[in-house]
């Protein structure tokens, strides 16, 4: 397994309830796992713990079978590419420069760039379709273009796994579809995928497996059809829903207005 959490529990100091409570999940090459759940249910905390940024209270988090805490950050960066929720753009770079930062862990002595690094950056930009604006400043990009640049940077790390935390937040329909299509394409090409998202319906169509968190605990785990059950979704999110089936077989959640029949 490339990425694996077993009985993972994270407790923030001073809090009585654990932020993440006994979660088990894993992903491997060619598989896209989606973590869903209401705001504050522990999705981002789970990711950070699995990626070694938060200490575990109990359980384990392994990368390629080795506890994540034992990985030096530079070594981990060669195996897992991460697109976190936010990053600063106070000092806006050009797109190509920004993608080149993905090579940090692989650069030679004194940070020298080689032909190999430049080729890897070009390939990453081609795969995420951002080559055409390689010389633009990142603060002039649209939200969708910017997310694709960040995916390109993660790809430039030449990782075995791609982890994304709400990559489509505040994107319009076309851009969120483009990002999901790109991720699915990359995972089908062999990467292991782990994504946190609020898009239940897109997760249902693109992910192989879903984990639904509720107050830090696993409320449902399995294929999208197993996880997106009407009663479970309504209870976990605290809002009545109907679940229908799209023609590709994936369950689709429709939130109901008060008084609407199920």
């Amino acid at each position: 397994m490339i990425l694996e959490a077993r009985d993972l529990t994270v407790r923030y100091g001073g809090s009585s309830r654990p932020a993440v409570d006994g979660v088990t999940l894993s992903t491997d090459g060619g598989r896209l796992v989606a973590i869903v759940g209401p705001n504050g249910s522990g999705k981002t905390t789970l990711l950070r713990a699995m990626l070694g940024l938060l200490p575990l209270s109990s359980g384990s988090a392994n990368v390629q079978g080795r506890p994540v805490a034992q990985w030096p950050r530079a070594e981990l960066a060669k195996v897992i590419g991460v697109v976190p929720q936010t990053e600063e753009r106070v000092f806006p770079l050009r797109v190509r420069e920004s993608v080149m930062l993905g090579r940090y862990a692989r650069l030679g002595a004194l940070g020298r760039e080689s032909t190999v690094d430049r080729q890897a950056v070009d390939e990453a930009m081609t795969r995420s379709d951002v080559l055409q604006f390689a010389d633009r400043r990142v603060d002039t990009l649209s939200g969708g273009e910017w997310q694709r640049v960040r995916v390109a940077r993660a790809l430039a790390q030449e990782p075995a796994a791609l982890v994304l935390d709400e990559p489509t937040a505040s994107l319009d329909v076309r851009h969120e579809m483009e990002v999901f299509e790109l991720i699915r394409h990359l995972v089908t090409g062999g990467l292991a995928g782990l994504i946190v998202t609020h898009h239940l319906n897109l997760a249902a169509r693109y992910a192989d497996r879903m984990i639904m968190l509720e107050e830090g605990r696993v409320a449902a785990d399995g294929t999208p059809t197993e996880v997106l059950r009407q009663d479970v979704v309504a209870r976990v999110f605290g809002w009545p829903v109907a679940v229908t089936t799209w023609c590709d077989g994936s369950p689709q959640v429709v939130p109901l207005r008060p008084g609407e029949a199920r």
Partner: protein
Amino acid sequence: MSGLRGVLLLGISAVVLVVGIGAGATSIPPAEVWSGLLHGSAPSSAIVRELRLPRVLLAFMVGGSLGISGTALQALVRNPLADPYLLGISGGAGLGAVLVIASGGGGAWGVPLAAFAGALLALALVYRLSIVGERRLDPRVLLLAGVVVGAFSGALMSAIIVLSDVAQLRNAFLWLLGGFGGASWKTLDIFLAYAALPAGILLLSGRALDLLALGEEPAQYLGANIERTKRVVYLTTGLLTAAGVASCGIIGFVGLVVPHAARRLWGPLHRTLLPVVFVLSGCFLVLADTVARTVVRPVELPVGVVTALIGVPLFALLLRRSLA
């Protein structure tokens, strides 16, 4: 750095250094500057070699050090308005110097030493204050701690100045405003002894600073050891600033204006930005010092006054243009 840019920067520095050496109480034309530099027997050789050259070189090195310190700190706190003097170091250095001047001690050696000791003390205090929970350095707390320590030493400094007698008061004030009047080969050597290593380390930290500027979480995912980088940045900028204050007093705005301008011209990629900022900040301070000792000859203005008088309008202009 591209070859063309390197040649351009070298050319600019050469011109600025020659202008800086030529200007002063007795002005020396460029041709004589050259002959003075090359031949010990030339008539201008004594002034050029013993007075002007070390002074200009010291101004260049101090300027460059302040410039890269400002650039690195701005990346550390992800805010283009950070300045080396926000670390409270100038306050600590000033307090040390004023204490020695007011007690009538000091002299050529005592004042810089006391300033350096004061700066290191402030550096350690601010550092200790900004380590929060689980031994992590929080850049926001770092700035706040710097401002607090600076304000406290400023208050103590004012109290000491008010209580000391008039002649010493003027000396303390002049010292605080900064200047290269006391520059010699010896002061240059002392400055370089403290500054060469931290400046070298900072100049090689460009890649790590690029990652840090994205934020701590993304930087770690890209492979940066951010706790180490933050500490290295804080300690090297602190040492450079302390060495600068100790050798020529408090000179503000160099670390703020030049990085800002250079970023607009060359972009914010630190690997190329740091050497450019070093050279341009060095030139800026040499020119400021040249202005300081020529505009109201034979009186010398404190160079801190000149950098502020040039730097503030320039900065206001840049700020307005970047917001437009």
